[in-house]
């Protein structure tokens, strides 16, 4: 691994950590809208998230035996972006009075989202540590990503992008990370290009996305 590759790796590590943290904050925010009690919901979300991180990192070894390392990582990122983009939409679409085994379905989906994102993010770190043997540096890059996410989320990201815009943007970030690890060069260029275009389109369409979010919310409560 040369120096450039090494730097690139650290960048991917922090981006990936950033993305997972943002998903968690989005879910925590949604929970506090649906149920009330911000501090309570943030605490619970972080607890569940860290627990699922642990489960994910445990399962990495068995996954590694079945598939190639690279494949595991790419699929994880892909799944993460799908969960991250669709879960908030799903929560907005489900009506409030839909009960699933005694639980409100939207809250149930939120918890499922938290668990899924935690589990998938747990797989990332062992992989990155596996590829890059410099444990301390990778860990600090990971923590740095989380730090940036948590310091920027409340002040800047949520007020400017809104829930839906933010989840799409972060999902695309995850997709870009997945594309960079593709083996086939021509496919890689095409994929990175498409995701990049999607990225720009999303940023242009952010106000519309937020309006759609507000409409969906109104529809959810039948106002």
């Amino acid at each position, binding site marked *: 691994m040369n120096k450039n590759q090494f730097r690139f790796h650290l960048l991917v590590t922090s981006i990936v950590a950033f993305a997972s943290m943002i998903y968690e904050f989005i879910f925590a925010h949604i929970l506090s809208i649906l149920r009330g009690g911000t501090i309570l919901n943030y*605490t619970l979300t972080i607890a569940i998230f860290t627990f699922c991180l*642990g489960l994910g*990192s445990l399962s990495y070894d068995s996954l590694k035996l079945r598939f190639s390392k690279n494949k595991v990582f790419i699929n994880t990122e892909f799944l993460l972006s799908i969960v991250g983009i669709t879960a908030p939409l799903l929560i907005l679409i489900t009506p409030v009075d839909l009960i699933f085994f005694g639980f409100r379905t939207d809250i149930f989906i939120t918890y499922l989202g938290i668990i899924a994102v935690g589990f998938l993010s747990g797989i990332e770190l062992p992989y990155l540590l596996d590829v890059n043997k410099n444990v301390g540096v990778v860990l600090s890059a990971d*923590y740095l990503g989380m730090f940036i996410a*948590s310091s920027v989320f*409340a002040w800047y990201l949520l*007020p400017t992008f809104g829930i839906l815009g933010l989840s799409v943007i972060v999902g695309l970030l995850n997709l870009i990370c997945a594309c960079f690890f593709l083996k086939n060069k021509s496919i890689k260029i095409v994929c990175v290009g498409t995701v990049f275009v999607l990225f720009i389109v999303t940023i242009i369409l952010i106000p519309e996305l937020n309006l759609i979010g507000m409409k969906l919310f109104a529809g959810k409560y039948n106002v």
Partner: protein
Amino acid sequence: MSNVLIILICSLCSLSSLGYELALSNYISRLTGYEVWGQSFTLGVYLIFMGVGAFFYEHRKLKLKKLQFLKLEALIFVIGILTPFYLEITNSILILANIISGMTPAIYQLSLKVTVAFIPTCLIGFLTGFELPIIFQQTKRYERNYIIFFSYCGSLLAGLIVSGLLMEGFSYFNMFIAFSAINLCVCMLILLWQKKYIMFLLCTILMPVFVLAINIFPEVKRVSTYISHYDYKIQTFSITNIKNILNVVQNIGDIAVVNTPYQKNELVKSFKGKSRYAHKDSIYRLLLNGHIQFGTNKEKVYHQTFVIGALNLIGKIPRRVTILGGGDGILAHELLKYKEIEEIVLVELDPDMIKFSNENKVISKLNHHSLHSSRVEIINEDAFSYISKQKSNSAELLLIDFPYPNSSDLKKLFSVEFYRFVKKVIGSDGFAVLDAPIYRDSRTGILKEGSKNILSTLYFVDFKQFFAFGPYTPFVFLSNGIKQPKFDYEKLTKNPNLDNVALINLVEIEISKSSLLPLNFKYVNSVMKPIRFGNE
């Protein structure tokens, strides 16, 4: 045996450290009043210092032995137990220094306090960063995954414990005590791991210190809370003021602090002294999460104009009135003066607030035990979820009395979604009156930032009638009727309950469409895109 010990040690280690972090973030978000920011930023700082710790350990090639691991844990324990004392004492010192040096703007003071609170966060994070590498060093490679798993388990437990303690209404101090007790257990387990049984016995000596700390703290807390509410009364530092301060400290007594799962209620008495703001009777102020709710000297103006103005505008007295918020019961007391009102529904999130207003002598004197009345029905529910369940056209009069939007829970109640619910519930025949923080610059007449946000949000929902009335902090009248309501001044002057007629419409704010239109989407607050209010 040793495996079980390692598992216990690593899960308890992460439990206590994350516990400290959560307690600190709880403290910081209560201090600043900005919950989301407090929670997320504290976590971020803690994590990055964990990273710095791990990096430092790796970089310096430190090889700590088991005994040094013990020292590390003991250090974390000491920091953990001292932190609440440190926070309270520095808080008081900062406030006193502020009084002596003359008043500095509140924002600088707040940022200083927050900086002070971040020092223990950084220290605990940094030391925690050492833990995992040390444990890794002393175990075999294949065990690492399990160790990571169990340390994450510990953090899950920490989250659950903290949310449990929050539910019970514990303050951050109790959390520190709980987690430093766990930290002490870790120290003892390490001793067992090393087979130092004599030291293990000696370690029990630390327990009395622990108990002592628990007993001293409430005293420290009482004095510091008291000091923290005197910053706005003493303006200059002179000999008379020293006397005043001493006078205050000697007469410490009337302060009620209630921690509930949702907020911190404080009722603070202004002292009878020769201060510039001295009042004939003692003034009490109710603070929620450190933000002033009302003072007993201005309470009458506010509640009378709210109720009498609203009833006069709609021109009749409804049978059923719904109050959202207003757990102090004073609005309900004003409404109970009208015999025609058969039922008052009061929706308040916090059951402890209701208990507080019923039991506290000062507040129950103001509300005349209105919450015990048979005509008042109390519903303990989040106003957002309550109103989302109501049928359309079901409310005759809706009085909305929330604290100002300075936390993310409260911003939800000033959003497009909430106002849409209001519009649906009042239908075409009902009315809503809203206490909204609308301020304009007294010279230029330009709306201040936060007020612009609230008005734009109301415009977005498109009520047919939408105007403001009342004293300098006005109320907003909302309805979907075609006719614009007008005050009946003849009736107002005859109303025996109203002390001062002039206040009812002191500043009729003509919310001129020209200043807000075309509507800028940037100023519209929605739960999907919560914006920043000016007072944040």
